[in-house]
């Protein structure tokens, strides 16, 4: 039976660690992927409720993966999490605009605070479930 699940693409496991408590609390599955081809395959296979895609040193690789994921699974909300230190607001704005053009729902920059990531994932998860089953994902949403 399909479960709400989050796929995390990154090289070091830190982002997955930041959402572990939230995922455990809700019994969501968290799947980690460290290679682009494996990530694409995973997204196609499991159709995750949310994909967290960490952008690391190789910007082009991450953005290419983003474009391919959106092409393969347009319903899967993708959050681009930049781990790349950028000097100014202009660079961050350019990257955000490009990522959103490619299909990212949100773009996060350091410092990557756990409460922010948890809130974002919770909201996207609830929205995906609501869209899929056509009903509120949580009674509290009705308030």
């Amino acid at each position: 039976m399909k479960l709400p699940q989050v796929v995390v693409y990154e090289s070091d496991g830190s982002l997955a660690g930041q959402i572990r408590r939230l995922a455990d609390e809700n019994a969501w599955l968290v799947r980690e992927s460290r290679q682009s081809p494996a990530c694409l395959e995973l997204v196609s296979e499991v159709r995750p409720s949310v994909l967290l895609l960490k952008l690391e040193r190789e910007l082009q690789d991450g953005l290419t993966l983003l474009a391919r994921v959106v092409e393969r699974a347009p319903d899967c909300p993708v959050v681009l999490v930049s781990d790349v230190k950028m000097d100014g607001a202009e660079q961050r704005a350019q990257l955000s605009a490009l990522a959103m053009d490619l299909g990212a729902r949100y773009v996060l920059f350091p410092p990557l605070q756990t409460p922010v990531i948890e809130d974002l994932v919770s909201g996207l998860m609830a929205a995906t479930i609501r869209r899929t089953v056509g009903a509120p994902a949580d009674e509290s949403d009705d308030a």
Partner: protein
Amino acid sequence: MRELPTLDDTRCIGSGDCVAVCPTHCLAMAGPVPWLIRPADCVSCAACVAVCPTDAIRLERPRLA
């Protein structure tokens, strides 16, 4: 992680009986098949297993791969 309902898609006929019988309302139909939308609320009671007319549901620990 505890045991949760898993679905054999090839057997499911989309009757929705499992959704109706679930005492904690953790299941919902997503198109033709049920989806475990609130796994944290599942109490592994196996009511869905018992009511399924085609034996398409089992309780087992979710697999990550």
